[in-house]
C-alpha cells in the first residue's frame, strides 16, 4: 500500500491511498484503502489521513475519520489523536501505520509495526525519508 497527504499554500488538505491488497487474499476481499473514513480521509477543518495495515481493523474502527473526530470534538492535537488511534488499533489486532497532516504544523507518521516506508517534506524542500524506527 502507498499513500500521500498534503496541505497546499492555500491551506487545502488532500489524501490518497493505493494498494494491491494482501498476498493470496480471498478474491473480492477489500481492505480499508478505498473506504472513505477508514483508509483515506481529508477535511480542510481537521486533517488529511492515509493509512496502511490490517484493513479489516482500520475499517471497523473507522481509523481515519476517528482521528478527525478527536480533533473536532475532543480538541486533541493531530499528533495526539493519530498516535492514540494507532496505539489503540494495535490492541485490536490492527497492525500498521498512517500519515496525517493538519490545518497547521508538520505531518505526523505514527506506526505500530516493525517499520513503515515513509517520508515528508515542506517549504524548505528537504526530503526526509525513513524505514525503521
Amino acid at each position, binding site marked *: 500500500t502507498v499513500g500521500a497527504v498534503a496541505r497546499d499554500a492555500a491551506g487545502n488538505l488532500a489524501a*490518497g*491511498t*493505493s494498494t*494491491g491488497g494482501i498476498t493470496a*487474499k480471498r478474491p473480492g476481499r477489500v481492505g480499508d484503502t478505498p473506504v472513505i473514513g477508514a483508509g*483515506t480521509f481529508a477535511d480542510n477543518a481537521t486533517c488529511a489521513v492515509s493509512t496502511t495495515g490490517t484493513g479489516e481493523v482500520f475499517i471497523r474502527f473507522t481509523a481515519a475519520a476517528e482521528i478527525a473526530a478527536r480533533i473536532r470534538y475532543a480538541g486533541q492535537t493531530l499528533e495526539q489523536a493519530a498516535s492514540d488511534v494507532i496505539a489503540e488499533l494495535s490492541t485490536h489486532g490492527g497492525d*500498521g501505520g498512517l500519515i496525517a497532516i493538519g490545518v497547521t504544523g508538520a505531518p505526523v507518521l505514527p506506526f505500530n509495526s516493525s517499520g513503515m516506508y515513509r517520508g515528508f*517534506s515542506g517549504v524548505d524542500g528537504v526530503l526526509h525519508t525513513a524505514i525503521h524506527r
Partner: protein
Amino acid sequence: MSRGFCLAIHGGAGTIPAAALNTAAAETYHVALRTALKAGWTVLNRGGAAVDAVCAAIVELENDELFNAARGAVFTSAGQLEMDAAIMNGADRAAGALAGICGPKNPIVAARAVMQKSGTVFMIGAGAEAFLQTQDIQFMPPDYFTTPRRLDALHRELTRRVAGMPDTRSDADRHG
C-alpha cells in the same frame, strides 16, 4: 505554528525486518521515496493544489515495483490482481474510490476520475473498469503489473496453506 505547504507519503507498514534489509536495498527504498516526495513537493512549491500533489506523489510510488500498488501489486489466492485506491479533497469533501480493479496504469488517477467525472464516490470491479474505459485513463495489460517477487510470495503462501503450515510470514510478505 507553521501554515506553510507540506506533504507526507508512505509505502506501506510492516516492512522488511531491519536485519534483512542491507544498506543497498534500503537505499533503493530511500531513493524511491525521495522521488515520490519530490514529485509532490514540486507541485506544492509552484503553488499547486494539495490534491494534485497527492496524485503526483502516489503515481511515482505506483510506478515503482518496490511497492504494493499498481506495478508490483500483490496477487490474490486465485493469482489475480485486484487493486484498490481512493482520493479525497479536503476543500469540499469530494472523494473517489475504486476496488477490485485491474488495468489502469495508475489507480490513483482512476480514483480521481471517479471523484471528478462519475457522479459517484465508490465504484468496484467490471463496472468501474467500463467507466474508466470512457475516460482519459491509460490502461496496461496484466503483465505490466506482474513482478517475480510478488509471484514468489504468492507461491510461498499457497504452498504453506496446502501443507497446513502455520502462517509465519513476515509483514513484508503478508502486506507486500
